[in-house]
């Protein structure tokens, strides 16, 4: 790090030749550029480490295709209107249709392979709220009449399964903003457990 910060000699010479005032100014901008580069690098590194885009789901589920077939979110994410969690569908749910081959997706036969082995599909849950947050899907969908896309984005146009958290952008401020907008209490205990 220290060596990295050494001035290139040619530059220093130039700096010496030119007037001090000007030289000072140039040097400042040089530092500024250096700072931007370093800071940018750090930010990039942090965001790269921070984002977990490396998840691979066991089956390349095509949301768009299913919606086009006339299905609704609730048909698979069964508990959305009944419980706190939306729930990821289990194998039984998939087999309702996919016990016989459907379509031409190369991942589709995998469902029956899992069924044969008597295993569940090891879906990886990517949307997670911290443990001290209480979020009821039922309340937001049934009572507040929110649309899934408000938090989960446009799943209807998505041809692959989710690999990274779609709700990562939700901060407490966002929750509170919306609550304020719809005149819902922002009491801490409303959402914290």
């Amino acid at each position, binding site marked *: 790090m220290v060596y990295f910060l050494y001035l290139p000699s040619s530059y220093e010479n130039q700096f010496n030749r030119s007037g001090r005032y000007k030289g000072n100014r140039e040097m400042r901008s040089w530092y500024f550029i250096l700072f931007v580069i370093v800071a940018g690098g750090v930010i990039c590194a942090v965001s790269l480490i921070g984002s977990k885009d490396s998840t691979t789901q066991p089956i390349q589920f095509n949301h768009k295709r299913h919606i086009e077939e006339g299905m609704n979110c609730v048909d698979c994410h*069964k*508990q959305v209107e009944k*419980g*706190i*969690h939306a*729930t*990821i569908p*289990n*194998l*039984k749910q998939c087999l309702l249709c996919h016990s016989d081959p459907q379509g031409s997706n190369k991942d589709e036969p995998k469902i029956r392979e899992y069924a044969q082995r008597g295993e*569940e599909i090891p879906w990886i849950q990517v949307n*997670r709220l*911290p*443990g*001290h947050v209480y979020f009821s899907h039922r309340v937001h969908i049934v009572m507040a009449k929110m649309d899934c896309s408000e938090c989960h984005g446009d799943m209807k146009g998505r041809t692959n399964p989710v690999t990274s958290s779609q709700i990562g952008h939700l901060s407490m401020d966002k929750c509170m903003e919306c609550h304020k907008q719809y005149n819902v209490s922002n009491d801490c205990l409303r959402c914290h457990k």
Partner: protein
Amino acid sequence: MKDNKLTRRDFLKAAGATACGLSLTSCGESGDPYSIKKPPVSGDKGLYKGYEKWVASSCAMCPAGCGIKVRTVEGRAVKIEGNNECSLNKGGLGPKGQSGLQVLYDPDRIRNPLKRSGPRGSGKWQEISWDEGISEISKVLKKLRDNNKAHQLAVMCGHSKGSIVELWRRFCQTFGTPNFLDTTLTSEGSIKQAMFSAMGINDLPAYDSANASYILSLGAGLFDSTCHGIHFIRTISMAKRGQPGRRAKIVHAGATYSLTAIQSDEWIPVKPGTYDALALGIAYVLIKEELYDKKFIESSTYAFDKLSERIKKYTPENVEATTGVPPKDIVRIAHEMANYRPAIAIVDTNSTLTSNGLEIARSAIILNALLGSIDRPGGLLIQRDPPLLPWLEPALDEFAQKTTSEQITNNVELLPENIIKGKPYPLDALLLYYSNPLYARINPGRFHRAFEKIPLIVSFSPFMDESSFQSDIILPDHTYLERWEDVIPAPSVGHPLFGIRQPVVTPLYNTKHTGDVIIELAKSLGDTIQTAFPWNDFKEALLYRISGIYKTKSGSIVKEDEEEFLSSLFKNGYWESSEYKFEQWADIFKTSSGKFEFYSQNTAEQFSDTLEPKWHGDSSQYPFYFLLHKPITYAEGSGANLPWLQELGNVLRKTFWDSYLEINPETAHKKGIHDNESVRVESSAGHIQVRVKLFAGIPPNVVLMSLGHGHTQMGRFAKGIGKNPKEILVVNTESPGRIIPLCGTKVRIEKIKNGKDSR
């Protein structure tokens, strides 16, 4: 120079940065500290997130058998709550019941059938399959039968009621051994015997405490620990404050200031174990002043004249000499009891711990009879049993018929002596079902020696308790939240109540219902034993018995279809008949006279003339009465492995995770003992070292110690915590009946110098 400085600075900077980094990384917990990742659930697939189910079942943490509902989330049992509908507990549940989850999720549960691979007590175990385990036992049992030694098998059973007990009895019967040893008898025996001699009923009494106006507790642990458990807390609270316009008075006569004494309106200090004298003293006043219930005495009792003859000795003055209760108090209580009817005198297993336990129980029942409180609202009730359908009588083969009918002992406490002596015969195999003699019996060291004489010991315990640790084969049972069972609660509400226990979660480990094991064992033994157990598994046998209830078509569940009946039974978790029918004296008294007997014709046992209990130990050498207390948390030692109960500790003394010797502050002061200091408690049977808690509610000549601690095994939370007072108890065989009293030992205490044992 300058260079030097810079490097030093750099070094400091680097060091500082490292320290900061270290501290920061260790600050943030890995992952989300607010939700802890739970282990995967075995079994049930297709459990979606947040899937929640309430399963009705029955509590097994004490004999009271409260109805419970267990909340399961994603296949895990998360919370136990009282069943709001069950009339026994009406939604309430004590600390033990709440802790049931820690029985299920005990980290030190036995997860596989085990076979000893080293010498006994070495703690070396080898995991075996269930088939191996069962065939190994059946090999030994077959050999016993072949050698005509079927009677040399003994079963120690720690449950007193239910199909599983019946199944064990049936097994013993068909196998041909009389040695089915009910270990609960030692604590409940006196009262059962008294009930039998007075009314011909071999059961504990129930008390209609909710409707009583006056409750006299004769040393009973109404709120400490009784087999009536939550029922007493619920009903007596109702009697005190639950009904507008009515207010019951509760008087507790007891040796020490117990939880019951605190919650009573009046505490009458009595010399330890002299409740019989007090009860008879009150009876004396009732008879002398003719305050008793004449109608009941005339119509439904036998030998009242003999009683009134005998009771003349119990003048209040005489009673004062024995009990220490002033005569005016005795007279006052007698008057109050006569005036505030219905009044009851309650005894339970805490009252009858001394050698005169039988006498105490009998005099209490007599007092109730004089008050006319037998089978009346607000009085002593006779628990009616649920109408279960008995199994068909088994056919016995020649082996079973020709074996001796003489039991190895008529008292479990005396078992070790008989085993060691080989009298009347040696024991070849011992099966332990919910009994842990190496911890729970008086002076457990004796059992250690006896165990050495038994070639095969099999334990069915789900926990590595002391006896299992010394056994040869362990066939772990399911815990009560994983198994099918029927529950007949200890007498409490009076009317028939039947609870079903069903699996709340799929069994966590490779354990097996002992009922299934018995059936399999019977099958492997073949012959008539096999035919006596025609069921595939225990559940089938159980459902056969339950069908008796269905067939009565009465009570809380009435369904045309048996399937429907069962499903709603499983949903409710219990069945109970409608109201209790009072004053059915002609039906309930099973004595030879058909009446309540003050002088039993059934039993040869008469009133004994002793007024005081026997104490072992010379007063000059051992000046203190050593009393034992059964705390609500452990009763007799089954809850020590549950951290929730350890953490609750002794609620009023605020002691946790240890056992204490409670002693009067003045006595302690005289002996120079301070709070929390260690003392050596010594009796003629041995000594223990224990910490002292000063408590003003203890009489000067008494020391009190709670049962339940001092395990040497039983998992990480029980092992090495506290001391077991039973280690220094003397086996006192002088008492009448089959009772070996728990409280019959006198001790001396010595301060340990410099906190170390002076020995």
